[in-house]
């Protein structure tokens, strides 16, 4: 680990606070990550010094804002290793990006009988937009199952059976927000290509958490949320292969996305402008680019190793030291997400009690109700680690869960 890691907790001012009389242990990173001071500064500096609308003005501030906004696009292209900045569309987040593809690409390209392939571990945001698309077009949904048991791994032995030539798009989650599984994205994309299906990767939990390169992965679309990688809320990225973006109709109409407008007809600007109608989220885009610098200074390989190590320690210690716990997900090669079920204690009660000890967890179905049903659970509790978490915080987690388990066994 390089020097950038040295004072890492000091980079995140929010971590330094007491919650219910205890130092905060923030373990809800899969929901949203905290923001380093440099990202907060990028936001406030933009509003203090450079704020103006982009693409429209010729005055100095507008030019400054425009060049920072477009520099962020270049930064994002580099971050994902896209072939060119024009392959990056700024969105409101992963959900927004998936809806863009399901609408702009889906409505134009799907017909009755076509198949949309998903996996059983998708977040609702990579399920519901496709359900709506299927309803609009008459296309059908199909799911690649997960194996039985608690590992939550995809059942790749079923891949050939479900990935048939009638599949037009295969949309799958890269890293599971529920079970911490890391899916073999490159392998899945290659298999899809073989049958002529496009791929959309939900990279909400992977971008900024592990090395990610869209060209090595071989995906056609990839959706990202800025707020899950040290960036602000309300901003995200959609990567799309340029040829696909060029062929797609617009998603939303309005200013900035046109080349000429008449009263009855308009012509579209080329991608990416075609997909960015209206005044974009300029400040957050610029701050998101700063978050990418921050993450690359730490090194994404190092971040992935850090998260995996914490998850492995947590997995082993919870299993060994907390009575009545069932830890879900694979034991190895996983992300920083660790979900568990505490026997006889509902996830809500776990989270409420942990909060009283200053430990922030999440409890519920984690936006995957069908997966919960499959695991025979109505909800789980989840601890999710990120780059600023420490092994000392796992001590606090273990002690808290022991206390909760004892309280309810009473």
């Amino acid at each position, binding site marked *: 680990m390089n020097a950038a890691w040295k004072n890492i907790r000091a980079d995140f001012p929010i971590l330094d606070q007491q919650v219910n009389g205890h130092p905060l242990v923030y373990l809800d990173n899969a929901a949203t990550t905290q923001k380093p001071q440099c990202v907060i500064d990028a936001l406030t500096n933009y509003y203090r010094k450079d704020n103006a609308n982009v693409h429209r003005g010729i005055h100095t501030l507008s030019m400054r804002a425009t060049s920072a906004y477009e520099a962020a696009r270049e930064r994002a292209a580099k971050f994902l290793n896209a072939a060119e900045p024009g392959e990056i569309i700024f969105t409101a987040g992963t959900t927004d990006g998936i809806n863009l593809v399901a609408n702009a690409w889906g409505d134009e390209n799907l017909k009755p009988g076509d198949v949309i392939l998903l996996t059983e571990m998708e977040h609702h945001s990579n399920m519901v937009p496709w359900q709506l698309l299927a309803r609009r077009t008459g296309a059908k949904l199909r799911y690649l199952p997960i194996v039985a048991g608690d590992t939550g791994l995809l059942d790749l032995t079923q891949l050939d059976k479900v990935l048939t030539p009638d599949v037009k798009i295969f949309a799958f989650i890269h890293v599971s927000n529920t079970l911490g599984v890391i899916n073999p994205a490159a392998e899945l994309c290659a298999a899809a290509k073989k049958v002529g299906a496009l791929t959309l990767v939900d990279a909400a939990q992977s971008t900024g958490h592990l090395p990610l390169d869209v060209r090595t992965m071989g995906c056609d679309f990839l959706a990202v949320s800025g707020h899950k990688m040290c960036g602000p809320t309300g901003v995200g990225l959609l990567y799309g292969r340029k040829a696909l973006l060029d062929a797609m109709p617009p998603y939303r109409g309005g200013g900035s996305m046109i080349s000429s407008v008449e009263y009855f007809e308009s012509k579209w600007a080329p991608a990416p402008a075609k997909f960015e109608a209206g005044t974009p989220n300029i400040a957050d885009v610029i701050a998101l680019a700063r978050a990418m610098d921050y993450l690359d200074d730490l090194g994404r390989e190092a971040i992935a190793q850090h998260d995996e190590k914490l998850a492995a320690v947590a997995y082993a210690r919870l299993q060994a030291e907390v009575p009545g716990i069932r830890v879900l997900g694979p034991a190895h090669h996983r992300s920083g997400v660790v979900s568990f079920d505490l026997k006889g204690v509902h996830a*809500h*009660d776990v989270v*409420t009690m942990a909060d*009283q000890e200053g430990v922030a967890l999440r*409890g519920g179905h984690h936006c995957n109700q069908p997966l919960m049903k499959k695991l025979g659970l*109505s909800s789980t509790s989840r601890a999710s680690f990120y780059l600023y978490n420490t092994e000392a915080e796992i001590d606090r987690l273990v002690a808290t869960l022991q206390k909760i388990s004892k309280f*309810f066994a*009473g």
Partner: protein
Amino acid sequence: MQDLTDLYQSVILDHNRRPRNYSVLPTANRVGSGNNPMCGDQMTVYVKLEGDRIADLSFQGSGCAISKASTSLMTVNLKGKTIAEAEAIYAGVHKLVTTGTVAEDDMSDLAALAGVHQFPARIKCATLGWHAALNAAKGDAQPVTTEKPSD
């Protein structure tokens, strides 16, 4: 854990561990269900209505300690009551879980729910089963969900 023993009073823990009237009621002529889509909680309440009197009731479902205990306490407290009486009791419970203050008369074991008001995120858990029961008794067949502005 001072605040927590407020929330998880021994009455609550007891009703969570051994929920009363926790079964399907074969004689029920009304069924109500309550869902909390935010957390996956699901309660089904069975009501045997005779005229406007709740002759018997029971429940089943999955939920946190608060929703389970509150629904269990409800079955004990509403048995034999008229719909109007049941509504009055619920009004007291609602006041209790939102403000922590007890309505004028003695609420007996229901007073154990007072701690809920300190945990605003949990108020919906405490009211879920009550909505389901009252809707069933009043003949509103719609499943209740916590995402309606009903509480």
